């Protein structure tokens, strides 16, 4: 087992290296340079200023040198400074946004699990019933509806017409003056819409996965055996069927790990939530190469780790993999 993990971990290094090269090339492909975008078409910016700024960012050097310089810093786990005019450390910019995105996505993931699995189980057990069809239609609708559109509709309904929920942000303007419970309620009120909207798509995936893999399991001989020896149905489902069916959910969870830090550009932008997705979007728009690279590398790393974790977790949960 340990050698397996070790082997996988070592293999991650060349993979990560390849990812950085490809990412670096791709983000330098489109026209436009950092800093220059703010200065484009500005009569006050002379040629000398332009050259000076380019030199400051090492943009006057050929691409492979730029990559080398970046790599030299990166091996020391230094992501460099942002190209945007605040010149802050990339790692600071990322760490101040990471907690927000992670906690939001964890909440959404929990929401998906808590509702997705029971829906899947129910739909598998009572396949073809009216409720199964209804639930299936509901989750598919949730999957198919464009998130941004649903988000705007919900904001219009709950925010503007009913005036029940705040529309954007995470905290009210007077947050610092609220009592402890007031603060919790304030954040909870702000979270209702974003968490609901961001999990509605995943809910469909989760419940469908659960349903199909449970159906698969329910067809197995040992389930028939369990029924035959007269076990109560609840016990069959809980002890024998669902446990086995959950294996596929573990794979799904492994794939969700990079999403936890990636955040969603769309709903973070719409809800005005200062998370990673927003940071990434703004960095791309302003060609802030160090920040883009930082986020891409961390994301790639977490994807690889997530896959590894999922495999390990599968091995732990499933003796066939562990022993075989």
């Amino acid at each position, binding site marked *: 087992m340990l050698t397996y993990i070790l082997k996988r971990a070592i293999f991650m290094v060349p993979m990560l290296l390849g990812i950085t090269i490809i990412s670096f090339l791709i983000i330098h492909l489109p026209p436009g340079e950092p800093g220059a975008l*703010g200065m484009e078409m500005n009569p*006050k910016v002379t040629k000398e200023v332009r050259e000076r700024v380019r030199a400051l960012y090492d943009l006057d050097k050929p691409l492979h040198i730029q990559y080398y310089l970046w790599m030299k810093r990166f091996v020391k786990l230094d992501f460099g400074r942002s190209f945007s005019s605040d010149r802050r450390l990339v790692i600071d910019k990322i760490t101040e946004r990471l907690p927000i995105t992670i906690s939001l996505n964890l909440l959404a993931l929990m929401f998906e699990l808590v509702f997705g699995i029971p829906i899947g189980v129910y739909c598998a057990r009572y396949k073809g019933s009216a409720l199964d069809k209804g639930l299936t239609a509901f989750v598919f609708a949730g999957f198919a509806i464009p998130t941004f559109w649903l988000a705007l509709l919900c904001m219009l309904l709950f925010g503007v017409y009913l005036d029940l929920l705040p529309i954007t942000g995470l905290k009210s303007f007077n947050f610092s003056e609220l009592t402890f419970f007031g603060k919790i309620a304030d954040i909870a009120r702000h979270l209702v819409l974003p968490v609901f909207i961001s999990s509605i798509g995943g809910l469909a995936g989760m419940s469908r996965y659960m349903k199909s893999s449970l159906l698969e399991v329910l067809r197995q001989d040992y389930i028939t055996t369990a029924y035959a020896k007269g076990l109560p149905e609840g016990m069959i489902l809980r002890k024998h069927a669902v446990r086995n069916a959950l294996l596929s959910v573990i794979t799904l969870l492994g794939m969700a790990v990079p999403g936890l830090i990636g955040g969603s550009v769309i709903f973070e932008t719409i809800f005005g939530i200062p998370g990673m997705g927003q940071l990434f979007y703004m960095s791309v728009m302003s060609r802030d190469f160090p920040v883009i690279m930082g986020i891409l590398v961390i994301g790639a790393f977490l994807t690889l780790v997530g896959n590894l974790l999922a495999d390990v977790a599968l091995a732990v949960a499933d003796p066939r993999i562990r022993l075989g």
Partner: protein
Amino acid sequence: MAGRIALGLLALLLIFSCGKKEEIGKYDDPGQPAYGDTLITSSIGEASNLIPLLATDGASHDIAGYIYNGLVKYDKDLKIVGDLAESWDFSPDQLTITFHLRKNVRWQDGKPFTARDVLYTYKVTIDPKTPTAYSSDFLMVKKAEALDDYTFRVTYDKPFAPALISWGSSILPQHLLEGKDITTSPLTRSPVGTGPYKLKEWIAGDRIVLAANPDYFEGRPYISRVIARVIPDPATQFLELKNGGIDMANLTPLQFVRQTEYPKFNREYNKIKYLGFNYVYLGYNLKHPFFKDKRVRQALTYATNRQEIIEGILLGQGVVADGPYKPDMWAYDPNVRKYPYDPKKAEALLRDAGFVKGADGRLSKDGKPFEFTIMTNQGNDVRIHCAELIQRWLAALGITVKIRVIEWAAFVNQFIDARKFDAVLLAWTIPQDPDIFDIWHSSKQGTKELNFMGFENREVDELLVKARQTFDQEERKRCYWRIQEILAEEQPYTFLFIPYATVAAQKRIKGIEPAPAGITYNFTKWYVPADQQRYRTEQERK
């Protein structure tokens, strides 16, 4: 299970029910100026750096505008008045400006403001190690010196009219910055200025909170706090405005005219408009064989129904532009040649220029059909719609127009810089100082320079130089009026329109008076009467 669900629902209900906004009666009573309350605004992007010298984004400059002062500023009629400078005088040869500074000004950390701060600001701006976009005006200074604590003198090689307002740049605190690397200074995130507001809190990506500076030299501003929220999505911003979550926002023409026309909104908000500081134009590549002939350019302007553009696309929220200035500026010449929509005249001019109509109704000259492409940047629907209307009008004359919409960076780098375009539909900012040398002088045609149309006119060149070498407003006015006459005759651009800036502001905020300079020039005098204040801090309630 049912019990648990009920409990969950109850919790949800509790979450929903608390924290509704307190209702406050009518806002129509102008009341008396009072201290207090909070103004919440929002912007699409977040400020990046609160040392304005280092920032190129609008969001940073908007926030910095509350925190810093320059030596001079524009008043509501765009006249230059003193800010940190009480007065100034020119030497007889107009090469030297001597500023007399205010004596009662303190930095927000309590240290007094002196001429050393001004000298430092000048030095750091021209320092080659400072990555700033704003050094060009200061690089024309021959000598800068602080004569004493409250007198500052600059000398130029030749008289330079925009020099005076270049001292409107934010003055930085020398005692906190001198000898340190300005790019990594803590002041980029927690600025210290002399202005009416100071930074209280900055939650990255979410909001910036400013608090009134009680010691501000022009008196404490009435509004106690300003919160600038970051809401990246314009649709969300509009919803948040309708919901009362922000107090002031820019509206699109559609929002201004239609989507806010309902009683509740009109009860809560004042809708304000003033002429914006920009104009939209269709610019011709003057090296293009067809566009070399001014009759062709005049014809295209006659063929463009600018009034219909304003009615149809801007829903009336704009005025026709007939030159590079807006009508409420002193440099604007109202008597230039006008080009009302007249397709007949356009047709006649094109015939004079040698174009003939073929059997298929299309124009051509020497066997070459009249075809060209209008390029514009992605993400601006108004410009794209304008191009579509122009395409239709010109098609009626027998001219084939193609439209290409390109992402901004690619547009600038691959087409504008390479001069690979027939005509572009873009906009210019209208500068508050009327100096337009960089756009129209024939020497400004290099890469990355702004006369990319290739406009060359000896008389305009001379007038542009003459106008920037005198401080006499009447003299400058004569120059700029003549330049506008020439531009109107030459039509290197078809000047399309100047849009109105359309703003909604919560009604409890009083004292907003639109003027040529916009609305924020008197921000410190805005107030909310005591009985209409909405957001009070715990302290203020006691």
